[in-house]
């Protein structure tokens, strides 16, 4: 969450990048300074230890996920190289620091390792992270080292696809078996009925051969036949009533679903896949949806954010350059992309992403579903008022570390033992969402 503020400068970088290219020209004078810098660096090269402190590793993981993951993995080569062992193979830790902060300057200085790397990766330039402090980079390195040093996961785990959800189904009886058993039982019941029918008619014939009193005949041949039951008022009433009630229920259900667009998955002007970006490459949602921590709207990323990566990555795995080309074209012609809006709340309802994601700490998937598995985004939730209210009834308020709630929690705990729900602090009130 705290990493949010770091996105902003990152997003802005595209504006300044052309300037950096200019730096290529003014290399000669910088070369000497850099040589000097490297001389100094090599001096204290071994003074820097990569920390094994869990706090540093955690901080590094957050930074890594938010900033590096778009292009790098620890064990795997992606847009950029796999980072495991980077602290051993590069000239020095300080080299890493200066490269991360401003790679183009290092390359421009003609430093051989940087130039080699640059050429090896199709002259792809790494985004400059000038806002990183040295300790941030050290934390990231701590995380990378911790990840790299982990024992290789066993083969079984590796084959399990990401996303999950499957294992949950294994806990109960598979639904197909249940159906088979049901159908079997119904067949047996029908067979039983047929056998019973034969028995009854056989017995009737047997009794008819005897002479019977009138009363007994009535019992054997009742005046109330199946036909007369079907024609009886009571039966007709029940049938009509049931049909009407079911019809009514169907109409009501139909009306309730008016305007509910659950499952709405329109075709977008660009076949952007969340499955690739959020799923496969595990790019943090907040990297692109920059508004989510501070705004009402999470914001659909502006083209310059796409161009942070797609400046370099011009061909996709599935569609080649057809779809990515549209982004580049939009960027070059300065024409915005007209996405089709999927989640449409009515104007009378006020919803604020910052309140839910930043303050309450709700995961994106809670409302948007398994977005990282969607090639085409669809509306996962109902987005009806009942759905909102339901969640507000069930959810505990995220009061941890938030002094705003201190007073409320204190008062709540005086009278109640259960945790404070959103409902308890006015989460069901009209003017929380309607004004």
């Amino acid at each position, binding site marked *: 969450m705290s990493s949010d503020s770091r996105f902003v400068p990152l997003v802005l970088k595209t504006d300044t990048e052309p300037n950096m290219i200019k730096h290529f020209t003014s290399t000669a004078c910088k070369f000497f300074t850099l040589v000097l810098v490297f001389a100094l660096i090599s001096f204290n090269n071994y003074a820097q230890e990569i920390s094994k402190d869990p706090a540093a590793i955690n901080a590094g993981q957050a930074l890594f996920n938010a900033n590096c993951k778009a292009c790098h993995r620890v064990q795997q080569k992606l847009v950029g190289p796999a980072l495991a062992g980077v602290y051993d193979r590069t000239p020095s830790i300080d080299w890493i620091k200066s490269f991360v902060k401003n790679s183009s300057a290092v390359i421009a200085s003609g430093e051989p390792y940087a130039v080699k790397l640059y050429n090896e990766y199709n002259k792809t330039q790494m985004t400059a992270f000038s806002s990183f402090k040295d300790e941030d980079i050290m934390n990231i390195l701590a995380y990378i080292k911790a990840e790299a040093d982990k024992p290789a996961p066993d083969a079984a785990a590796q084959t399990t696809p990401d996303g999950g959800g499957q294992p949950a189904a294994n806990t109960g009886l598979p639904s197909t078996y249940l159906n088979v058993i049901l159908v079997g039982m119904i067949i047996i019941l029908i067979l039983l009925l047929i056998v019973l029918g034969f028995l009854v008619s056989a017995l009737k014939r047997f009794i008819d051969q005897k002479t019977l009193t009138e009363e007994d005949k009535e019992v054997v041949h009742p005046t109330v036949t199946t036909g007369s039951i079907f024609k009886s008022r009571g039966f007709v009433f029940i049938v009509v009533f049931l049909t009407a009630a079911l019809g009514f229920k169907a109409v009501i259900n139909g009306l309730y679903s008016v305007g509910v667009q659950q499952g709405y998955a329109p075709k977008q002007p660009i076949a952007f896949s969340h499955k690739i970006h959020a799923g496969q490459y595990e790019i943090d949602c907040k990297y692109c949806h920059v508004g989510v921590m501070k705004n*009402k709207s999470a914001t659909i990323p*502006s083209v310059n*954010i796409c161009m942070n990566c797609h400046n370099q990555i011009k061909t996709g795995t599935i569609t080649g350059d057809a779809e990515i080309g549209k982004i580049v074209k*939009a960027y070059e012609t300065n024409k915005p992309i*007209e996405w089709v809006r999927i989640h449409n709340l009515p104007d009378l309802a006020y919803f604020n992403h910052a309140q839910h994601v930043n303050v309450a700490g709700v995961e994106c998937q809670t409302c948007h579903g398994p977005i990282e598995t969607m090639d085409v985004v669809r509306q996962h939730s109902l987005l009806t008022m009942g759905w909102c209210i339901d969640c507000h009834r069930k959810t505990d308020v995220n009061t941890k*570390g938030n002094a*705003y709630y201190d007073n409320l929690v204190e008062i709540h705990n005086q009278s109640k033992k259960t945790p404070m729900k959103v409902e308890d602090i006015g989460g069901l009130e*009209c003017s929380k969402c*309607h004004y």
Partner: protein
Amino acid sequence: MEESKKVYWKGIEQLANNPEFVKNAHHEFAQPGPEEDLGHSRRDFLKMMGFGVSAVALAACEAPIRKAIPYVNKPVDIDPSLPNYYASSYINGGDYCSIVVKTREGRPIKIEGNALSAVTKGGTSAQVEASVLSLYDNARLRGPKIGKDKISWEDLDRQVISKLNEISGKGGQIRIVSNTILSPSTKAAIEKFKATYATTQVVQYDQTSAFGIAKANEESFGTAVIPSYDFSKAKVIVSIAADFIGSWISPIEFTKQYALTREVSEDKRDMSRHYQFESVLSITGANADHRIQIKPSEEGAVAVVLYNLLAGKAGKPVISGGVEKPYIAKAAEDLWANRGNALVVAGSNDKSVQVVINAINDLLGNYGTTIDLNTPVNYRQGDDVAMTNFVGELEGGKIDAVIFYNCNPVYDFPTGDKIAAGLKGVELSIATSYKEDETGTLAKYVAPDHHFLEAWNDAEPKKNHFSLGQPSITPIFKSRAAQESLLVWANEPKADYFEFVKNNWKSWFYKDQTFDFQSFWDKCLYDGVYELPATAAATAVTFAGNVGAAADAIASNYKAGTWELVIYESGNIGNGSQANNPLLQELPDPITKATWDHYVTVAPKDAKDIDFTESVTKYATITFNGKSVKLPMLVQPGQTPGTIGIPVGYGRTKAGKVADGIGQNIYPFVNLVNGSLNYTANVTFIPTSETYQIAQTQTHNTYMGRATVVQETSLSEFKDKNWDREFHPKVATWTDPEHKVAPGELSLWKGHEYNNHHWGMAIDLNTCTGCAACVVACNVENNVALVGREEVINRREMHWLRIDRYYSSDAPADDWRGVEVASENPDVVFQPMLCQHCNNAPCETVCPVAATTHSTEGLNQMTYNRCIGTRYCANNCPYKVRRFNWFKYHDNSQFEAANPAMNTDLGKMVLNPDVTVRSRGVMEKCSFCVQRIQAGKLTAKKERRPLKDGEVVTACSAACSTGAIVFGDINNPESKISKLLKIRPLDEKKPHSIDKVTDNPRAYQVLEEIGVKPNIWYLTKVRNKDTAKA
């Protein structure tokens, strides 16, 4: 009475009672209607159509495709849904206010005061608040024009420059006509223009001139300036027809200062005493402790009497003339007793009257304390003589080129008709107004300026006080800064006005700074203001005027007339430059409560013969110097008998859809007396029998002595009662009729628990001047619909916040009919009335669909999407603050003229995106700006800290110049409102219960006895009346 046995029958068939008749007797019509014979009746058609329509509607319920279009390159400082604020300056002629503009997604949507300004100190006015809608006026010019045709800027520049060269080459005269120019950079740009075209002269004029004051100061002290006044230091204020709260010189500044002297509490037990001598009831007069009716011709005479009384005390020679009026002697005594801490001002634009006023202030030693000649103000630089000469030259054909810089003299200068005629003979005429107006349509070229919210500018409202104006939106149309036009025409190589202002500031102010210029500039932009240290402290001066001669001039210049007219600026329309702003047209004038209408105010005594009913009045014809206007009469308590008043600002013909055709232009009645414009006249006044209905929002004038609505007292009474207010309602209980308790102690309801916040409001009736800035602020903030004249007459105006104006009555309290009639010269109370957010709200219990409910923060919530429009709530509201949407006011061509903000694409840009635009058939009311509360809370939550006091303010509270409206959390003992009201829980063990009591002796609740327990407290009105009768 014996029952009649007679039987009547309708016809023979009934008498016969045959079966055919009996069968048909129950049918409504004897003959079957024609439609019943048809195979498919009209009803069948409607049924089928109804089914068809609903079937199609259901089938088409697939929502339309909506687009979401992000930026290509997101600007750094714009985050969708987060507002940005820019400090800027409101400049409209000589009217100035330092402001903060709230923008959403690059569109200005709200204007608020800038607290960093030492001049306006965060105050605003109705005009300033409304000006954001003028930005989106459909009558704005789309680009430069030649005559009625479009032209490109390049062509316009080429033609104008060649004509200017030609004119200046042959020595022809060029004039730049303007209202007061506050901007030093604009003046510098004009200097550049003058340098290129040497025959150029600048003529400034003001709609409401203060030329006489400057002339008087030139005579008295040798400097032709208007000094700074400081009302906050004055213990006694005497104003002779100066409406310093409403329109005189710098009302926002003066209102703020004045309010400081009107605050009264147990800790600050003193307040100023204010005497007002005037003819038309102004809001300044309405706030005065003693208001004395005089005729306009007596303004100078009253000053002379006052001078003589004071001169007597000072042992100086007296002067001749004068007319006795009540309270003058008392005022003189009070003034003399508070020498050095007093202030006497006069609204007259006559040099002679102002010289006498100067002499009075000099006798009292007010120079150096309440009046500062060393810090002159620039609000009114109009030169009546120069402007009159200009009109003469224009008529005589001596002018070859004229540039009207953002002014409209054809409409608002008394001899505008002569300017219009003279313009025909002028070779080159250019107007730079940002919108269509009476002058611009007559000019050969129109070179539209930006609206002030689109433009860079600066201002020097007061000596050493500078202010920057920065654009808060990209220019909407093809307009260009007028100053830039002047620079282009002056062949300046670098004509960019932004660079011009910046460079000026660099050379003027960037000296001896320890940081770089960009930082200095950024700081100035952030603050919006820059102040130089005072060069000289306010000092006493020597008076060198000739009082005797002035008195003689007064005596000879003013003669009493049968009907004396006062021309004044009303509290809503002002001088008429923003007349096309419907927010101002629908804003009720603070005194007359009239909207959308022009009128002539008449004293009740004079109106006796006029058959006047509550709803219908009659026209009168007013004639002066051969010009006559016909206006409906409005009976105005407080108006001096024998005088009438007409506000300016109406009678526009080329302003746009909103203002055109409303009323008459009264500027031509302004005349020249003693070398300056005179806003009074002796006229003929003839009532006619033709009737008319003026759209007024309040026609009931008194509160009929009910202390439960308005509580007022005098300072001395308040002191006598040991700082306790007079009226404490008590209710009897059924257990013991003798035992009466305070209504707050009883309740039928279980009450609520407010564990988090408990929002409350305090409104000080003492410092509320009734200026109505809050009403406009509320309208803009909450997307309140404007409904137009007809609907106001139907009592369907939508204002969430209204200001009730009550007059006192002379009748004894038991005269039920009499107390409904206002006094001839009443005391006035303004009471802002809005949803009281009752804790036991009567509206909530009657709503059948629970559309209005109570929140856990004390708010009475209104949910539009749930409302079905039964209006039970409005019927059950004791305060009558709920407003019903009788029509669809948005996207409805019938309301386009009255409500452009919801009906035109341009106007819609002003809407607050956080507030729903309500549709037809739902109820609405004040929400305590719940969107601001929610936004404030979210900011605190995001920063993981408790909400601070003052972080959440309602729009009305933010707009209030005097701080009369205080909003805050009364659960927080440290909040401003808690301290002001001295609030404490009724039961110490239940700090979060609704039951809170106030220990402020002035605080009361309206209709406390009905036990609805409002969350708004009012502070008793205290008048500093002199109890000994004069």
